[in-house]
């Protein structure tokens, strides 16, 4: 109630112009105390007047992502404007200034640091030194530049200048920029990268900090921050991101596409984000903000909703929220605000059911953000008072929508586990079967489901038969345990391989290994380094051909031994490692029999991204075992494959040795 009155006091009467309406919302977001503080700043009136008269500028401020700490944002923007009152007449500089102000509000970076960053982009653009794409960026994209990389010193003006002048490449090539620095766990003096002594002897001795990193080296943190900073220094949006035990980064390689770089896993946590720091969160951000017309429309409707609520018209406000989310169902911020409205106005279950249905319709394709809102805001309201069966039915409404990874692989297993916690234990088996019945046939969710099953229930556990029987019955397959596992693995392993999901491939593959006896390693001499293929995945061309046995693919990668067979025609057998590596050697064990000759003449190729391949050799002759010595070379990558243009390929083992570079 108090909030309603406060909102009512904040909203001036008789607002007519677009500028006034937008400024009123800015006022609302600041709150009366902050607004009053701002009005006391010298020159505020001139700035506020310029802002109010410029609807484009106001929308850049209000519709380019979250406005956190609005007083801080506006003070910073005011200071920039005051130093350059013509700023708002230059669209690119205005947009970058606004982006810097918004980024300034997201963290506690010092004023002079952000100021220097803005000056860098303004001056570099004026001098024509940035990538041409910079001029066309939207404000929300510029926020990534303004935020900079995780390692702040690589985003200082001196570092940016160095990177701009020395690593200037076509946009898409920045996914390789990390390799400008060598991967070294110890510096030349033998001090570990995990301690403060790694760079200490060398700080300040180079033209700029990036040159120090390029000369002295680093590990994943240094390489990823260097790669991301190099892109950003040239005006290309990028961000560093954490992965389990690793630091990676992403670059926006064209107008629509964010490309992960130096990445090992789908489990990513971005260091620059608006609402959700996951990869699917970034995909939603891209989809949401790239539609500026829908953003403006939904934003305007939301602003009217706030105004109506402040005026006491709750019903109208609610209707306007619904309209706002119909106008742009991808606007996650507004879903959260509408949920907050529902909580604030004490809405009942029926209201939350309507919200739930609208959410699934509007945001459903982006399952992870949808799940986040459902699990935090909606289900807790809806499942109170529902029995287990009703809860399961409610959850299945969402599960039924799971077809493909809308925004990329995410922790759907966590969602299923959450659901199980919300139903009685005696309902677990049924819910697991129901989920399996819906998702098993999905190439995306099927492998994740199988992997989840295998972590919850081993084939020896009492629930295995009943759950699996139910699942497989629903999918029309056999219900004998080993046969069931074989059946699952035959589908799930190639699915996981096609999606580069190493973790799921390993989980399912290890379980499926019990379907065969280990093969002797006799005659297979290792190379120096680690057997890196053992932790990776195998991708075999010609999926579904009658000679292949995918349930044995996992064994091909390591000491267990296995089997794989491509289809006839142009073929490949590829290993995707769990880590980027410097390769020391390959041991390829042929299949026995009269067709061993098929492997001879195959090209050996490596890749850092699974897209661009480099030939590094050829399998010579007909041999039971091929040893390819790479110790004297400097070949590195995360993919290794053998390729043929005719006939087919079949192997028992494809062992890759090397030293990790991530």
């Amino acid at each position, binding site marked *: 109630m108090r909030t309603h009155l406060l909102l009512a006091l904040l909203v001036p009467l008789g607002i007519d112009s677009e500028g006034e309406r937008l400024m009123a919302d800015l006022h609302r977001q600041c709150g009366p105390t902050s607004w009053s503080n701002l009005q006391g700043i010298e020159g505020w009136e001139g700035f506020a007047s310029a802002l109010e008269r410029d609807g484009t500028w106001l929308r850049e401020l209000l519709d380019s992502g979250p406005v956190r700490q609005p007083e801080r944002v506006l003070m910073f923007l005011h200071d920039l404007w005051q130093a350059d009152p013509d700023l708002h007449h230059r669209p690119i500089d205005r947009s970058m200034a606004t982006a810097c102000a918004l980024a300034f509000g997201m963290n506690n970076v010092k004023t002079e640091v952000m100021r220097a960053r803005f000056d860098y982009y303004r001056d570099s653009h004026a001098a024509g*030194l940035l990538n*041409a794409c910079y001029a066309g960026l939207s404000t929300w994209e510029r926020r990534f530049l303004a935020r900079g990389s995780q390692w702040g010193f690589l985003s200082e003006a001196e570092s940016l200048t160095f990177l701009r*002048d020395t690593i200037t490449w076509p946009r898409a090539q920045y996914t390789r920029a990390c390799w400008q620095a060598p991967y070294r766990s110890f510096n030349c003096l033998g001090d570990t990268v995990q301690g403060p002594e790694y760079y200490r002897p060398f700080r300040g001795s*180079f033209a700029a900090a990036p040159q120090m990193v390029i000369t002295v080296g680093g590990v994943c943190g240094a390489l990823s921050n260097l790669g991301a900073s190099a892109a950003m220094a040239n005006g290309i949006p990028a961000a560093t991101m954490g992965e389990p035990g690793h630091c990676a980064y992403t670059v926006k390689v064209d107008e629509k596409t964010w490309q992960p770089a130096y990445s090992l896993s789908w489990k990513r946590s971005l260091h620059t984000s608006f609402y959700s720091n996951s990869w699917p969160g970034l995909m939603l951000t891209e989809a949401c903000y790239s539609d500026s017309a829908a953003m403006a429309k939904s934003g305007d409707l939301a602003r009217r909703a706030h105004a109506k609520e402040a005026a006491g018209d709750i019903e109208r406000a609610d209707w306007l929220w619904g309209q706002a989310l119909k106008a742009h169902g991808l606007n996650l911020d507004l879903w959260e605000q509408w949920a907050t409205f529902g909580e604030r106005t004490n809405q009942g279950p029926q209201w939350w059911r309507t919200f739930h249905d609208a959410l699934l319709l509007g945001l459903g394709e982006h399952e992870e953000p949808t799940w986040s809102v459902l699990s935090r805001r909606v289900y807790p309201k809806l499942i109170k008072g529902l029995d287990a069966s009703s809860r399961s039915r409610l959850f299945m409404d969402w599960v039924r929508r799971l077809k493909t990874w809308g925004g990329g692989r995410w922790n759907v297993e966590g969602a299923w586990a959450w659901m199980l916690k919300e139903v009685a234990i005696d309902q677990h088996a049924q819910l697991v079967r129901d989920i399996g019945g819906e998702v098993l046939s999905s190439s995306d969710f099927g492998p994740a489901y199988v992997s989840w099953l295998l972590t919850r229930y081993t084939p020896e556990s009492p629930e295995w038969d009943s759950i699996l029987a139910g699942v497989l019955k629903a999918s029309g397959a056999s219900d004998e345990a080993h046969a069931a596992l074989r059946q699952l693995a035959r589908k799930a392993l190639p699915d996981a391989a096609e999606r580069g999901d190493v973790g799921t491939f390993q989980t399912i593959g290890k379980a499926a290994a019990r379907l065969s006896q280990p093969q002797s390693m006799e005659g297979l001499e290792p190379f120096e380094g680690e057997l890196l293929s053992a932790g990776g995945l195998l991708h075999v061309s010609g999926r579904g051909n009658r000679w292949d046995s995918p349930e044995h693919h996992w064994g091909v990668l390591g000491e267990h031994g296995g089997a794989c067979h491509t289809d006839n025609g142009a073929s490949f057998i590829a290993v995707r490692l769990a880590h980027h590596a410097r390769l020391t050697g390959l041991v390829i064990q042929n299949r026995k029999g009269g067709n061993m000759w098929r492997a001879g003449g195959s090209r050996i190729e490596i890749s850092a991204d699974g897209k661009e391949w480099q030939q590094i050799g050829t399998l010579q002759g007909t041999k039971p075992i091929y040893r390819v010595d790479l110790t004297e070379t400097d070949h590195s990558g995360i993919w290794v494959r053998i390729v043929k243009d005719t006939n087919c390929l079949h192997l028992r083992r494809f062992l890759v040795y090397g030293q990790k570079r991530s």
Partner: protein
Amino acid sequence: MLHALATVMTPVCLAALMQPGVKDSMAFGVGRQTAAEKDAVLLVLAHGSDWNTLGERMFHELWNDSDFASAVGCVLADVDVLQSPSAESKQANDARNKGWVEKGSGLRTYPAILAYAPDGTLIGSRQGADLPRKVVEIRAVTLQLAADCRKWVELTAATAKAKAGADPTTELTLLIQRDGLPLARHPSLLEDLRRLDPDDAGGHLARLSLPHWNTLVQQATSQAQAGKGEEAEQRLLGLLANTAYTREQRAGLHLALGSVYRRWADHDELAAKHMRTASTVAPDSVCGIAGMRLYLRLYGGPSLFMGWEDRHTTDTAAANWVIEDLPAELEAGVYTLRLKCTRGGSLMLTGAALCVDGKPIVLGPGEAELAGKGSTLELEFTLDKPLSNATLQIILGERAKSRGELTWTRLR
């Protein structure tokens, strides 16, 4: 009628002749062939017409400017690397760039000017930090590059002549002169030096073949860590005995030796000595600075760089602190040394002085106490005249184990 036609056409023809050529820059393949035929240096501009503004300005204002083409005196060609081509433009562009292979071209960044000899050898480049960001300055740099390249070609021809004439002394002199140009090292230089001066009497081979300091130090460290300290020591001492190396290279050798001794039990004194020597030999070089910092961290007394540590306050530690890393030149004025204890107990100071060659020149305050963690103490020093290479000596009285920071500031 013919007369009338000539009257009209002549000014038209003259005007056409005086117009600057629209496309002075050739495609790479054509340029390479032309340069070979004309026995001329080829300058290739690598640029990106749909993304790299500076490169485009260079392309239009220099590479397609006849005045520049005349002044530079080389064959000009370009390679346009597109960022977002359509299918058609990619096809056309790939056709134009035919013959261009980025790997091995010398290209590291854009825009780049790559210079090739008539036989296709990469002579040098201007890119990245070597290339200014303003076209007027780039013009000057490119003209100089062209001049250097012509000199390179001249020296290469003279070298070949000396070789043919079995004149190794002249050949060697010319090779070194050519290597002194601000261009890329010739791929056969080291091989030629071995042939011409097998004993390396001139020291050129040693100087030019010494690995980069990072490689040198890393190899030495690895050897010592593998228990081969003596082997590494002998090798590095052997290299140091050669006077051919530059100061910076010698600093690297000393740093490498210091790193070897650091990883070799009971060799701390030698480690300290060589790390300090790296700094003495080339104080502003990467290795010189690293050597000093490593010395201060591991072996030296308290310092502005590291502050003081527990080992400086134990009972067996020296009673006098000598701070060695003050600025080399101190002007007359008033300075303070601020001590801030970050951990541990108290320190009693019984005296302090700025010294030169170990002799006190400017006395600081007498007794002073720094209480434990979180406390600070400032010692003031007044210099009536400048001092060079001063150290700061502090005499300790009672002390508990502690750590802290040291800051040297000029007040006025």
